[in-house]
């Protein structure tokens, strides 16, 4: 559960940083931050997904 909150939280924060930077006129930096945030979230999601598939494998293959 907390993972989802984490991802959500990161998403919100990154969005806010993006808008602050864009407002300051540093658009390119804003985009970089967004990309990095996306990558981090991606890694987190991939980790979670791999855990999920492990669980599924465990459940279905034990039966």
């Amino acid at each position, binding site marked *: 559960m907390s993972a989802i909150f984490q991802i959500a939280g990161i998403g919100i*924060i990154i969005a806010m*940083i993006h808008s*602050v930077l864009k407002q300051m006129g540093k658009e390119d930096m804003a985009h970089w931050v967004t990309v990095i945030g996306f990558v981090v979230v991606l890694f987190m999601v991939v980790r979670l997904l791999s855990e999920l598939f492990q669980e599924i494998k465990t459940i279905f293959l034990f039966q």
Partner: protein
Amino acid sequence: MIKLLGVVLILFAGTMLGFQQAAKYAERPRQLRQLAHALQRLETEIGYGHTPLPEALKRTAAASPEPISSMLLSAASGVEREEGLGFQESWKQAVLRHWSETSMRGSEQAALLRLGSTLGISDKEDQMKHLRLALLQLKAEEDAARDDQGRYEKMWKSLGILIAVLIVILMV
């Protein structure tokens, strides 16, 4: 419990860092204004008071806040301290030495150094001209600095908080 403490600590650190950066942006126009006042006072001392330069610098330093005050005092006492040191070198040394204590940047430093090479070695009209030129340059920088301040001060404050929150979320 400790976690909570850690979270609070990180949030606090991030916010403070952000505010510190913002303060720099706020400090620069203020110091530029103070420097301009100091130069105006110097202009009066030289133009109307015919005060000798070391004395004029000391009086101006007494009426100016730090770090401008110590910079001017250094410049004035540099020539008394070291035999063979011309005024230009003394001024340069003083400016370079005290610059890190200010929030000012390269372009105003260059203007000040240029001024130092002209102080005390030409007649009154020339001195006034050079001082006014320096004042104009400082005014231009001050206007630009105020613009910067408007934009970046808020930005850094927000950024500080946001990054702190980000780190917290990542860590927790």
